[in-house]
């Protein structure tokens, strides 16, 4: 086993960048911040690639099984001999894979932002926040201790909050950042309780030890946690479901998804980084990290499965109706993460049955590339058109050929058309679902078709459709100097690289590297099996083409046909309104206001009483301190006299 200590530098470099840019950026690096951030992240990316190469091809494998290596473990807070909060670095297949995903997507976003954010007033701050986010995410990935996960989890939440609210003078961005923070915080409450339950019964917070204890049926910890029950479910189920609640909050699973579409108020490259490829898959990663424990509990896995599948379907339906291109992408992200979740849910731990796990990780990997490509492409388009609305776009394919090509590749990838990346991972997920649960398979298949439909609705609306409108918009475009074409090379380069990835990463023999138990898994794409999803996708694409390729009335007819259902989907099925109703009509008046009253009148009142009494007494007696020396001498003699009397006549 060789030394992996250098992996520590992968998160530490962005941290250093954050500190330097955060403290001195505005003054000294106002122009060069982007280059500094990009350079430090490039180093991290190269280190990750070196680490991946070393782990996967040189020394990670022992007897054909990839080992879990704890490269570093530093006991930070020791509560008792067994329970401690550690900081450490874990090296295993999924963490190494996530390293690659996070650093490379983050690097692409850094490069893209060089052009996209150019001229922003808080350019250095932006890069400082990006670095903070990258650091937190990398720390989260490398965690050895479930509490370390929790800490980085919160850091990720904070940096996401900062980045969504980057345009802090825009009220909608401020509201969105608060919403994202509060919703995920609420979910994290569940996560924390889950950690405490698991930690209490497991007697440790170390992930490796927890997995060891809870996967052997005879261990006293396992017996105690499964026999203890609360409201008819075992404590293991409760702990895991609560941990999953934290994951669902970050990964925007129903019903905690409401923050993700609003989070699109942030700068588009940020959406590509946080809300497409990295932070939102943290929930999936968390479940994958604890997967051996999840696999011991049927009930928790069932919840993961159904929440994932329902979210996938719901988000896909909503995505078909939205007109803001970033929101469409946000719902598509939610839908794809739903895929990853239910793939985990239908999986078993180890061997052939671990197909779902491997498929989920594979989809996470491929999704990161094509989804960040979609977001960056959308960023390019928004940069050009200065609008997020579909109706302001159309016919852009001639104006932005590179973006057009990249976007088309990404759309084909997410639609699962061979030989693009999404096809391979989606096939694995569908296969896993088919073998385990036919209902889920049906949902997944339908969602796949919907995905193709709404992605190509987006594609045709942006790049085809009303040619004249785009031209009119263009020539009427305020002044020509404002017109900057497709963007700088720093904006095109990431698109090209990511497009290459979106084509290529599907061919990686993923099952050789990342499986639930570390041993290689034999998979094969069954051509006959692939016919149904691919055919459905193609039909959906053709349907989208007939609706949206040129402006016609077919789409309006379809809208009229679905009527109320369309309106409900357009309004996101009123989930936001439901939340508002619950909070404004139930939580605030019935719980919030009484508590506020008690706070103002009882808690504050008691303190005010103390303060007022003190003030009154002091006003009454402050005359004693007159500033006249002779008065003080008089008190002194009076005191001496009183003491003398006391000593002489009373305490004889």
């Amino acid at each position, binding site marked *: 086993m060789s030394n992996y200590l250098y992996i520590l530098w992968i998160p530490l470099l962005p941290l250093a960048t954050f500190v330097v840019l955060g403290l001195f950026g505005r003054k000294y690096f106002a122009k060069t911040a982007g280059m500094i951030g990009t350079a430090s992240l490039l180093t991290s990316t190269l280190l990750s690639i070196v680490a991946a190469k070393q782990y996967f091809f040189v020394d990670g494998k022992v007897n054909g099984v990839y080992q879990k290596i704890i490269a570093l473990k530093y006991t930070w807070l020791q509560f008792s001999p067994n329970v401690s909060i550690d900081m450490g670095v874990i090296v295993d297949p999924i963490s190494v894979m996530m390293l690659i995903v996070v650093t490379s997507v983050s690097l692409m976003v850094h490069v893209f932002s060089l052009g996209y954010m150019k001229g922003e007033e808080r350019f250095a701050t932006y890069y400082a926040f990006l670095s903070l986010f990258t650091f937190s995410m990398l720390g989260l990935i490398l965690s050895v201790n479930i509490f370390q996960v929790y800490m980085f989890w919160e850091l990720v939440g904070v940096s996401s909050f900062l980045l969504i609210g980057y345009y802090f003078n825009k009220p909608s961005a401020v509201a969105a950042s608060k919403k994202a923070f509060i919703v995920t915080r609420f979910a994290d409450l569940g996560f924390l309780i889950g950690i405490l339950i698991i930690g209490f019964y497991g007697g440790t917070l170390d992930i490796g030890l927890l997995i060891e204890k809870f996967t052997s049926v005879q261990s006293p910890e396992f017996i105690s946690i499964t026999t203890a029950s609360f409201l008819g479910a075992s404590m293991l189920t409760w702990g895991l479901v609560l941990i999953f609640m934290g994951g669902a909050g970050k990964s925007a699973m129903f019903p905690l998804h409401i923050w993700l579409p609003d989070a699109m108020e942030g700068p588009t490259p940020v959406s590509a980084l946080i809300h497409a490829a990295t932070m939102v898959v943290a929930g999936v990663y968390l479940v994958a990290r604890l997967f051996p424990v999840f696999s011991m509990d049927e009930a928790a896995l069932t919840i993961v499965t159904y929440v994932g599948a329902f979210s996938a379907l719901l988000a896909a339906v909503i995505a078909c109706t939205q007109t803001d291109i970033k929101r469409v992408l946000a719902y598509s992200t939610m839908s794809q993460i739903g895929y990853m979740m239910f793939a985990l849910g239908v999986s078993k731990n180890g061997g052939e049955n671990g197909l779902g796990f491997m498929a989920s990780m594979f989809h996470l990997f491929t999704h990161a590339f094509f989804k960040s490509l979609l977001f960056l492409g959308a960023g390019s388009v928004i940069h050009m058109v200065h609008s997020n609305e579909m109706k302001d776009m159309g016919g852009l394919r001639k104006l932005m050929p590179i973006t057009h090509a990249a976007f088309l590749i990404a759309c084909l990838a997410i639609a699962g058309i061979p030989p693009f990346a999404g096809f391979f991972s989606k096939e694995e997920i569908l296969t896993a679902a088919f073998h385990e649960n036919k209902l889920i398979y049906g949902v997944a298949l339908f969602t796949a078709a919907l995905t193709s439909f709404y992605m190509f609705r987006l594609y045709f609306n942006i790049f085809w459709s009303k040619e004249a409108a785009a031209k009119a918009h263009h020539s009427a475009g305020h002044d020509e100097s404002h017109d900057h074409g497709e963007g700088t090379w720093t904006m095109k380069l990431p698109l090209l690289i990511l497009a290459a990835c979106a084509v290529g990463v599907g061919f990686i023999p993923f099952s050789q590297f990342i499986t639930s138990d570390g041993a290689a898994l034999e998979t094969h794409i069954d051509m006959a099996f692939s016919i149904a999803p691919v055919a459905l996708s193609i039909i959906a694409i053709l349907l989208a083409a007939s609706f949206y390729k040129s402006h016609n009335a077919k789409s309006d007819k379809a809208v009229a046909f679905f009527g109320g259902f369309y309106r409900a989907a357009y309004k996101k099925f009123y989930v936001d309104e439901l939340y508002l109703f619950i909070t404004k009509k139930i939580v605030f008046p019935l719980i919030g206001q009484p508590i506020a009253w008690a706070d103002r009148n009882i808690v504050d009142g008691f303190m005010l009483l103390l303060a007022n009494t003190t003030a009154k007494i002091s006003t009454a007696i402050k*005359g004693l301190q007159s500033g006249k020396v*002779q008065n003080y001498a008089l008190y002194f003699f009076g005191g001496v006299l009183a003491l003398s009397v006391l000593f002489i006549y009373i305490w004889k």
Partner: protein
Amino acid sequence: MNEIPLTHILFVSTALFFIGMYGLFTRRNIITMLMSIELMLNSVNINFVAFNKYLFPDKLDGLFFSLFIITIAAAEAAVAIAIIINLYRSHQSIDVDDATEMKF
């Protein structure tokens, strides 16, 4: 020779003490107040010496104490004069009623 009884001496010292106290409370001039304090200290000295002489003739503790008190009184006078000079510089007066800033 007929010895002076202890009570006479105590009477003198008590009178001296209360004369000093009266001066301390009635005078407004700080130097006069300082002198009053000296009176009070000296009344204590007389007490020490007298008790030593009449009650414990073979011991010297009372004498030592009075010597200490004289020393302290000298030091105290030096410090007090320094304070008074500074007070005069800042207030152009050595009347205690003019220096009452240090109040609530």
